[in-house]
């Protein structure tokens, strides 16, 4: 499957901005199952400085600095990505979750895919007993990890209501858990808190998902959005496997992975450090367009 993705971010600042240091996590990852064929960013005003580096999780991060005084900034990224993921593993064959937890603590790696980075509470995901207890219901003794994790994904889908008014970016996983509602970010954070509470490595995945328009209707432009789900480490043989609690499905050919991190705070698509007074307004449009004729 090949997608064209257009992601437009527009900031309107209440005061003049003199210096704008920005970090962009917009380039989809190139990794097994996912290949970036083309990628381009257009920024207004024109940045003076531009650089790209890999962060601790091997995400490609671009930075730029705008030094032209401005009150508006727009960043448009266009990517063409080819997705051809391997099928999920046979759940029953994956190792017992307790074994995975022990292997994670024993890991002798600090490489970007090391489970060691995904074990502890992070800036937005603190561990709370209720989440661990909730997860534990699926993680019965010696149960294969992927089997248990898929069940947890389905339970979150069933038990939690999708409600874009219930939470904000700053809502803690504990609050979302208490309310049993939220958006993809909240579901991902709750699931991560539950898994880490059991000593299992879990990461936050930010990216896009293709939306299928209702039968007979055309796809609405700009109607898509950034999406978030979870990656669970299933031992050295299986590595990181993606699970989407918002849709109760495994990461598949409708998902495009942009970045992985400990939680949302590690992977916002655009963040900036500005020298300015006052606040700003933000406007985001995302289009995920399947490229017809190529599969």
């Amino acid at each position, binding site marked *: 499957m090949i997608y064209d993705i257009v992601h437009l971010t527009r900031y309107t600042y209440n005061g003049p901005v003199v210096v704008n*240091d920005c970090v962009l996590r917009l380039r989809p990852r190139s990794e097994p199952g996912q290949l970036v064929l083309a990628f381009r960013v257009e920024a207004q005003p024109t940045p003076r400085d531009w650089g790209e580096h890999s962060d*601790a999780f091997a995400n490609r991060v671009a930075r730029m600095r705008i030094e032209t005084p401005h009150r508006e900034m727009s960043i448009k990224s266009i990517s063409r990505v080819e997705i051809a993921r391997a099928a999920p593993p046979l759940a029953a064959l994956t190792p017992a979750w307790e074994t995975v937890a022990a292997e994670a*603590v024993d890991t002798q790696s*600090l490489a970007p895919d090391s489970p060691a980075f995904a*074990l502890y509470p992070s800036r937005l995901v603190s561990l709370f007993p209720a989440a661990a207890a909730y997860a534990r219901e699926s993680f019965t003794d010696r149960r294969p990890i992927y089997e248990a994790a898929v069940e947890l994904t389905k339970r979150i889908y069933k038990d939690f209501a999708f409600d874009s008014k219930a939470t904000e970016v700053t809502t803690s996983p504990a609050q979302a858990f208490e309310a049993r509602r939220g958006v993809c970010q909240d579901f991902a954070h709750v699931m991560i808190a539950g898994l880490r509470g059991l000593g299992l490595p879990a990461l936050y995945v930010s990216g896009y998902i293709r939306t299928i328009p209702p039968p007979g209707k055309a796809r609405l432009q700009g109607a898509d959005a950034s999406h978030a789900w979870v990656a669970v480490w299933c031992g050295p043989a299986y590595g990181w496997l993606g699970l989407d609690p918002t849709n109760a499905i495994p990461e598949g050919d409708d998902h495009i992975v942009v970045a992985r991190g400990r939680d949302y705070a590690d992977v916002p698509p655009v*963040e900036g450090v500005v020298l300015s007074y006052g606040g700003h307004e933000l406007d985001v449009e995302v289009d995920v367009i399947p490229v017809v004729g190529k599969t």
Partner: protein
Amino acid sequence: MPVTVRTSSASAKAEAQVAQWTAGYAPLPGIPDEFIGPDGTRRAHWTRLLTQLAADPAAVAERFAAADRRVRNRGMSYRVRGETAERVWPLSRLPLLIPAAEWRKIEQGVIQRAELIEKVLADVYGEGKLIAEGALPAAALTGTADFVAAMRGVKPPGGRWLRVYAADIGRGPDGDWWVLGDRAQAPSGSGYALENRLVVSQAFPDLYSQMNVERVAPFFRDLRAGMKSGGERSEPRICILTPGPYSETYFEHAYLARYLGFLLVEGSDLVVGEGRRVYLRTIAGLKRADVLWRQVDSEWIDPIELNSASKLGVPGLLDAMRAGGVEVENAPGAGFIESRAMLAFLPRLAKRLIGRELEMPNIATWWCGQPGARARVLDKFDNIAIASAFGDSARGLEKRRVAVGSELGEAERATLKAAIAARGLDYVGQEVVRLSTMPRWEDGMLVPRPFVLRVYVAATPEGWKVMPGGFARVSDKPDARAVSMGQGVESADVWVLADKPVVTSSLLPNPERTHIARLLGNLPSRAADNLFWFGRYLERCEATLRLVRALSSRALDPEAPVTGAKEAAEALKGLLVAWGAIDAKEKSPRPAETALREPDNYGSALSIANAANFAASVIRERLTQQTWALIGRLRSDLLALPEDALTDAQILDCIDEQLTTIAALSGLFDENFNRGAGWRFYELGRRIERGINTCRISRQFAHQKATESDLDVLLDLIDSQITYHSRTLIGVALAPVRDMALLDPYNPRSVAFQTRRIEEHIATLPVLRQDGIPEEPLRLATRLSAELDTEVADRLEDASVLGIENRLTQLAEAIARRYFLHGASARAEKIMSLG
């Protein structure tokens, strides 16, 4: 012989005194004590100290009081996390004494440990053999944000990860010293140690020299040399990067900056620029910052690569480090070594990395992330101390930082055991530590109290150097497992006692290498900004006080001009409302009192005094203690007023006092402040504010229809009654009053006088380009000044006074654009020469 008789009787008296002080002094059972040895005898060096103190017992109280006074006068303070007010530094009466022979062993142990930690850091962030070969579990590092994955593969420009390391040590049950914790992030306390030394040595000069105390100044000289060697240039600009005045140890940062001659900077002072080097924003453009002594935790130092919520850091700093454009001490990421989990591995790593056992062991520690260690800890649960492996708290440890199994209730035990079984990686077990004790002075008696000693090591071109002395924290309770600065804990000076008199040295450099510099480099933009605003607030405070005084005194004075008196009072209130000192909506029954001390009104004298205090606190290292104390009085005097409604007389007394304080401050700035750019900005702030205020007051009280009473108020407000009446005999009239307030270049209160000074000040400031074209602030100031020179009072329109006021406001904005943070950064790309 009479002399002998006197001496022996004196010494008998001294002995009696010591006996009285130490009556009942007994070490706690099973715990080593500094004063009384394991065999029950008093240690000779302590006896010597006490006997010499006892020689003149009457003087002791006096000396203690002198030390207290010195602590207050020097403004020594610290902050407890979560509190905004600073606390006065609690300095213990008695120093901790350690004989030189024993100290040399401590030195060796601490240097060896610093060497080990340097090697661990270099491997973890470099080759990675310890992790790859299983000597150190990756998960034992990643539990703390102080492990910075982004630093892997970075070669610190100076080639080392540690510049300053500190070890918290205590005496174990066998009497030997043990390491309780490592400090490698940004070890605090060395500045306090230095301050403690200054205060104690000055309070007890004789004792200090008789006891042969080793000096700490050479350590700071070595530290400075070490920092200097880290820079690329031969005369590097060294900056202390502080989180700012709300930091717990800001006093120390400011103090060390002043003592070592480093610049105190905040993240917003710095910018990564040309060649991925780090530059300081100064009023003369961007200047290279070569070395940063980091007092900001790693996680916060670069919002681009690390925590993006940070306002304390420098965007792109890590990238600049990779490019070799700046030296950061200690390297970001060094702090993970502080976590308790590391104590479990350092002893084993010693054998591998330095081929020897540690000379000074650390308390035995087991990281419960490993199954064997976890089993052992759960097995010995009752007799082991459980603590968080990485932070201050973990599940089951919410109420206490350290728990010993046997001291927990059933429910707590079960919770903690289950938590360790579920997520052992969050916990360590440690052998139970009981700190050894030293004498603490309490109500004229000595009592044994637990203490922790922090020892500092610096990497210098001549190898590791240890500060002979350190920072001791003494608890106020007999049983303390952890001693951190907070309620009841005192800090003690630490005396390393040499066998023979000590050669004195200070930070004075070798005469061949000194050169005379009259001005101190380039003023950082933020300092200029704060000095400017300090000047403005001080002037605004004065203007507000004069307005309130005019209001109150008119209420009191039965002989005030009858015609228009009521109207004048209303006009004064109106101004105070416009000023933000009185709330327009609420009709305050006592407007003068409200304008004086209502904290919720941003224009009240109290609010302005607070703002002046804050502006000054940010540039504290540039102010003398006396200045700082006077600035503090501006607000403390207002806060000290009785809570009940104030009488007009009380208000007037208070205002007179406040005005005297401001006059004293003005005097200090005029007489003592170096005439560098800093003083110019303070002056600019005052002059601009005074010009604007005088315009506002003139518009209110010297408009075309002003009454005699109005003009009288104006003369009061601009403090020109005497001058006016000595010059003009006909009584108050509009034109001469206006001339005096606005145009008279000889009257230091007139607007024209202010604009001339402003023009002079700006003309002395550095320019960005050498093309001879005046910059915007100078252009505006020159034009305004020339216009006021040629204006005539009786032809002045009301509107033109407003015009002058607006142009002063524009001038202030132009100054901000050109010299302060925004201006400096906006112009970064236009600057011709960098460096």
